[in-house]
């Protein structure tokens, strides 16, 4: 019997889910499959998380598997490592990516290096889930995109989802991964796709094809990008919320762009990038995080190194500014469709 709102498709029971529900569904599936999977964080136990991503876990599986923690990210990361090195598969929630920094030493010096420093004797298969990014009027402590700190740390895998279907499949792969994974959930996308137009009515995931998610277990391999639109004129590399802003910009401007949702930043799907840029000869990179030393700088370098002789115009970047994330001026900071369109034109004009 299908739950309300769910339908059978190709043998799979499908439901319309938001990213929150998809993350929650992934956790439920993994809790059922593997008793070593535990989940914890601030407000993540009884209450089910401030965004409700861990809702129902404690009720169904017990408070030894889904529990609340003291408000101390360094402690959360520390116990995650200890549990991970001693046979469990912890999924730790950091309530906002902006609050990951008190745990930074444990993540970058401890979690990331444990396998290496012990000569392969010890490792901790920890997944860190954390909502990132802006677009919710969160100001500078509820809007940051800190992915580049972690892509710069060998030993960590870095994943960022852009829709419910991917969120579930990628989170399951992250939990199953024996290496530590930081799994970013763009919070502006939690309840619906966002094309960057904050004046438009809120759109929900129901009407989006990627809002249809199997109830059952499935996974999407890490390290695989998805080409969400094929095109011949320009390659646009993006991830997270920007996938939707880019898609809208391309749609509204009639450009034949190829849009790649990177999905995993480390390890990166370099083949997808190379094949596409060699085909189109042009490349625009879009991310929300500040520009200087952002992940876009790495993408630019790779494209330059690998596709230089195929390039027909300079690579362009559209990013957040090198400022703290603003509150009242959020929409002047947030990379807009207009700025993306401008960058595409700039690379096309050359």
């Amino acid at each position: 019997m299908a739950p309300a709102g769910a339908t059978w498709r190709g043998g799979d029971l499908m439901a319309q889910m938001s990213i929150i529900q998809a993350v929650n569904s992934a956790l439920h599936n993994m809790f059922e499959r593997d008793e070593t999977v535990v989940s914890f964080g601030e407000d993540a136990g009884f209450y089910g998380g401030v965004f409700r991503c861990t809702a129902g876990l404690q009720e169904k599986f017990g408070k030894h598997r889904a529990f609340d923690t003291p408000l101390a990210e360094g402690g959360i990361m520390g116990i995650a490592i200890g549990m991970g090195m001693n046979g469990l598969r912890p999924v730790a929630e950091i309530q906002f990516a902006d609050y990951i920094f008190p745990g930074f030493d444990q993540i970058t010096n401890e979690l990331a290096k444990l396998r290496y420093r012990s000569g392969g004797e010890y490792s901790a298969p920890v997944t860190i889930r954390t909502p990132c990014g802006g677009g919710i009027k969160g100001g500078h402590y509820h809007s940051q995109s800190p992915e580049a700190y972690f892509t710069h740390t060998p030993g960590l895998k870095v994943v960022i989802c852009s829709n419910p279907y991917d969120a579930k499949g990628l989170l399951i792969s992250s939990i199953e991964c024996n290496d530590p994974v930081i799994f970013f959930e763009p919070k502006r996308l939690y309840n619906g796709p966002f094309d960057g137009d904050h004046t438009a009515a809120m759109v929900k995931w129901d009407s989006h094809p990627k809002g249809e998610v199997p109830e059952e277990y499935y996974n999407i391999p890490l390290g695989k990008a998805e080409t969400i639109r094929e095109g011949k004129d320009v390659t646009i590399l993006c991830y997270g919320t920007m996938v939707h802003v880019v898609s809208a910009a391309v749609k509204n401007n009639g450009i034949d762009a190829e849009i790649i949702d990177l999905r995993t930043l480390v390890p990166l799907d370099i083949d997808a990038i190379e094949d596409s840029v060699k085909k189109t000869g042009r490349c625009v990179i879009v991310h929300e995080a500040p520009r200087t030393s952002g992940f876009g700088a790495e993408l630019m370098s790779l494209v330059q190194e690998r596709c230089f002789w195929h390039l027909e115009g300079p690579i362009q970047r559209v990013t957040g500014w090198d400022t703290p994330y603003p509150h009242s001026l959020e929409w002047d900071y947030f990379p807009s469709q207009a700025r993306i369109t401008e960058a595409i034109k700039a690379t096309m004009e050359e």
Partner: protein
Amino acid sequence: MNQRNAMSEYEVVRIMGQEEDTQMHVPVPPHREGGTSFPSPHETPAGHHAKPPIDCGGAETREIAYGLLRVLNDDDEAVGEWDPGLDADTLRNALKHMVRIRAYDDRMMKMQRQGRLSFYMKCLGEEAVSVGAAMAMENRDIVIPSYRQQGLLFVRGRNLVDMISHCITNSNDNVKGRQMPVHYSWKEGNFVSISSPVGTQFPQAVGAAMAFAYRGEDSIACSWLGEGTSAQGDFHYGLNFASVYQAPCVLVVVNNQWAISTHRNLAHGGPSFAARGIPYDVASMRVDGQDFLAVYAAHKWATERARAGHGPTLLEMYTYRGDSHSSSDDPSIYRPGNEYDSWPLGDPVDRLKAHLVKLGEWDDERHTALEADCAKEITAAYKEAEKHGTLKDGPFPSVSTLFEDVYEKEPWHLLEQRGEVGI
């Protein structure tokens, strides 16, 4: 106007220039210039403290947290409720471990001075801290140590050649030359890879303990950090998480008085590190770290308490760092050279030896023979280790190992980078 001022957008504000003019308090070591006026927890007599039941509340240990748990008295006798009642063979075994560690440390530091190790750290004066702990636990208990706990490896029976191979980073180093010497890892012995960042291991030990509890196993986790490190947030995270989840763990602050040149009175403003556990409702005790019997008894109590599900314990091992912080440190710059000789609680090897002599179970002749045997054994192991390579000439772990163990499987970018160096 000087150049710096000219470049600055700020007005340079003159403040009180002389130390005596200011109200700001900065503690200094009590006896940097020499002298023997040590703080006085040692004035607590041996046998003074009662032994609470293992299921007691944290607050019931308050007196010991502010006092000092001692078993061996000034006449080298074991006295009071905390006397663990060990037989002579066990005591001799403990003494042997400590003498062996000392011989190992001496040899390795000598080799470091000859340029055959890049770095070394001795645990002179702190041998009972690790030996007492390890003998009170089972090998299945996971240990997440800091520096100077090499005694854990000795008691758990790690092969000396493997230990030395790590310290000279040769081809037999199980951590593949990735860490500085003394950063041992030994999974077979449940000894977790040592990390240089200070204090990170405390909450990790709590997590490891929670994993045992999760599976319903009665193994425990034990972790050590220095009193200087107790100023880090991780120390408090560890205590708080341990208390909240009643994790089966033993958390140890090794108060050896010095964190490189930083005296313990810069690490906290109170009288006792153990006392910090009491507000967390964690059973907490300050223990004479030079007294093997006290160390053993405290760990035995804490280990049984954790195993039986009565929660965590914080132990402060009141001891003294008898030598330099490391081979890169010269303590004569910041503390009197004779300070260890004046340490009122003495030396752990001397004290256990004197106790055994008092019992009629040991004598100087046997002790000298033991020292000679240990030195010989270490020298032989060193030579054997050098067959796997030396720091000077190798062979070292192969260059391909540089790219291994970053991830379980090497991603494309590491494979490419490996290709760039031609392997």
